[in-house]
């Protein structure tokens, strides 16, 4: 189908990528999912694909700040969107990690690590909207992210610790 040719722009972790949707060589099929584009074309393999059918949350990325299942999102529908993957959370200059990542490391929250990127991004979206969540609210936010190793316990602790640190940083900023 020649008429389906369409150029799209994605901004992934602040970097712009242009693709052509179509069936030709080097073009992205209209049926390609965002997780494939991210993993196979941009080689950002921090976004995982444990089930590829929306059952585990391992492929979660932020699309315009909202946690989204990249295995169930078509790339062709992401034109003009800002996409954040796990690779986009580290400060490219200072290499400082996002407070959630740092808290996970500090509390030894991570085990096998396959669910970690999805959980981190889901948690980031939560804290961006709710800087002081309860444990129950954290659990509700993570309800779509399956973890088989940790029982979620240290993830809850890590997200609450990160929230606390982020609030303290915000308050210190106001004080200066």
């Amino acid at each position, binding site marked *: 189908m020649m008429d389906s040719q369409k150029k799209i722009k994605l901004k992934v972790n602040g970097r712009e990528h242009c693709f052509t949707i179509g069936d030709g060589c080097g073009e992205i099929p209209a049926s390609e999912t965002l997780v494939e584009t991210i*993993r*196979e074309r941009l*080689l*950002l*393999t*921090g*976004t*995982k*694909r*444990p*089930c*590829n*059918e*929306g*059952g*585990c949350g*391992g492929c979660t990325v932020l699309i315009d700040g909202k946690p989204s299942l990249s295995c169930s999102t078509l790339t062709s529908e992401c034109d003009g969107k800002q996409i954040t*993957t*796990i*690779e986009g*959370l*580290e400060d490219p200059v200072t290499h400082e*990690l996002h407070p959630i*990542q*740092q808290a*996970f*490391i500090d*509390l*030894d*929250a*991570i*085990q*096998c*690590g*396959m*669910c*970690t*990127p999805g959980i*981190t991004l889901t948690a980031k979206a939560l804290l961006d909207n709710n800087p002081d969540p309860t*444990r*129950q609210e*954290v*659990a*509700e*936010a*993570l*309800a*779509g*992210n*399956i*973890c*088989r*190793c*940790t*029982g*979620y*316990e*240290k*993830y*809850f602790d890590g997200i609450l610790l990160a929230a606390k640190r982020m609030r303290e940083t915000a308050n210190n900023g106001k004080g200066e």
Partner: protein
Amino acid sequence: MDIVGKNVERLDARAKATGAAKFTVDIREVGMLTAKFLRSPYSFAQIVSVDTSEAEKMPGVYGFVDQLDLVGRTTHHDILDDKIRFFGEAVVGVAAETEELALEALEKVQVTYRVLPGVLDFESSAKEDAPRVWPGGNVATWRGASPVSQGSSLRWEKGNTQEAIEKADHKVSITVKTHTQFHGALEPHACTASWDPGMEVLRMNISSQGVYGNQEDIASSLHLNLDQVQVTAGFVGGGFGSKAHNTCKEYLMSAILAQRTLRPVRYEPERSEECITALRHEATFSYELAADNDGTVKGISMKAYRVGGAHTSLQMNFLLGSTEYVAPTYLRSPNVCYEGWSVYTNMPLCAAYRGFGYFEGGIGFAEAVDMLAEEIGMDPVEFLLKNVPVKGDPVSTDQGPLTTAGIRETVQACADAIRWKAKYHVPGGRKLPDGRMHGIGLCHAMGRATLPNFVTSGNATVQVKMDGSVRVFAGISDIGQGQATAIKQIAAESVGVPFDAVSVTWGDTVAPHTGDQVASSTTMMTGNAVKLAGDDARRQIIEVAARLLKEPEENLQVKNGFVSSIADPEKRMPVSAVIKSPGVKVITGNGNWSITDIQASPRSLVVTACEVAVDTETGKIQLLNMVQGTDCGRAICKTRVEGQLDGVLSGGVGYVLSEDCAIDFKDNGRILNLNLYDYKMPTALDCVDILQPGIIMEFPDEVGPYGARGMGEATLSASAPAIMNAVYNAIGIRFEATPLTCDKVLKAIKAKQNKESI
């Protein structure tokens, strides 16, 4: 100790937190092809012919391999033939430029099957006239497949159990059926394979918890020397037993495709394929337990009936885990017997699963213990405290002396943490303000912590470099528990260098052969080998330094990267200067460690106490409160032990309360919920505000490095029976099958109400 026992950052924490860690599914190479597999629509069939001629014509399709290419090759301890033995087994593999092309190619492949009658469950397999899965018969034994007429897979006895049970004051019996479970590791059984024709090496990345077993299987099947196959498993996205001793046929086929196409090949199963790669199969256990009036156990009799799946794999070992790990080990008793059957069926592979058989074997056992305590009129915790083994007691089949010292103390600590004395009541004795029934339960589980020397040994090498840094070669994989970091701590401690001076080569067959990451054995097997290798390196450092410092060897120590005089710490030199000294340049320490069960029996231990609320209107069980405790000898890193204990909420609690495989026994044993939404693994919402902080007891184990003993495998195994017994305590119903999903609980409640109203 400077480093062992400290809460150090795990060495892969940052890589995992930032997404930089490359798991097997993340590895891409130039020119890499994708492998996909055509799968059998029958549970048992002979492959008559395979025609790939049409598919071969497709551009972008590079090569094929099929079951007939595998005839005579070995995996899962079976010599493969022209038959497939379970629904969904790989029949034909293709390597193509893209996944889509590979799938299109498979559509054009023609396979002719001769369908055979199969057996899907225990009852149909364990008949004398049943179709045989393998020619020798359907009963697994240590000697191989054997006919049903030859009897059970294994049996063992000490004392005279039947007589003891008859004579005892009290006896109980129960038969419990346990169900099938998916492991649910988020990274599937994936691999990559590439053949290097120059160096004549096949390099594979496998999402594995046993790279050496994979290496052996692949090398022998491909007629290569052992070291012509290099298997790497850097980051592994979970395993829980499913990736131990599991050289999937797809790995062999991917390797053959790589050799045939001279291109790197990757295989990543879809979730529906992953779910049938390995299972915890259903099983049935019958127990008779007897005790005297004072609560002393006099006899334990156990019968186990296991479904073993289509391959020999670890069936017998798993059966041993179900029986000898439990009946002659969990409690002291002068008279114990067990008899076990494991039968081949046309179902997927029987793989290890946390609590290597004792998870399911322990459920009925703990229910029988609970019944016996009730029969005698004893508090179940008091009954446990009276009967659990103590250090030095003979345990297991070999009756080697137990080295685990803190079982009673851990039981007591968990009972205290859940406030057992205040909360325990008679069955059905406490209604909560919201109308639900309250129940409480406490159980223990014990697994291995070593493997016997005829199975494997621990080996490691430590190299001290010119800058004073250290490289440890310890090929264990790290599927999430943090073994690589523990190895790093042990090496730093034993050589005497800072933690950050040590790098670890883990999950790689370039390191000397060492035990697979199974049976909670890494800490002792490979941990001891690393300690010995580090000690060896330190001894050599001191030998050289003694000459340089003009000080007798026995006066020297290595600490924090310096060799110094014990009497005069100012008299010292850096380790780097020792290595740089003439004629040295590198110091290599080697460690080899093994043990037999008769020498000593270290047993991992986990105790679970929990409270539940049962809604008698809906059958819904809510877990209100749970505490897990372990005696791990010594925690090499406490936060990591806590993390292991926390893991119970998924695989353990989920098994009893929500997870169930829907198996269609009328249609080839096909499993209907091969995904992560119809198969109900616990979510974060199921786990909030339940678990108390883990209790870590440290009674040093004489066998372990620095007293440490592994504990990961046992972490799920006390939870299922604790919940079963708590539910009994709540509503007075003794369940004889798992899971306890709402429908089954409600049905049982209604049946009880009907019976009582008659």
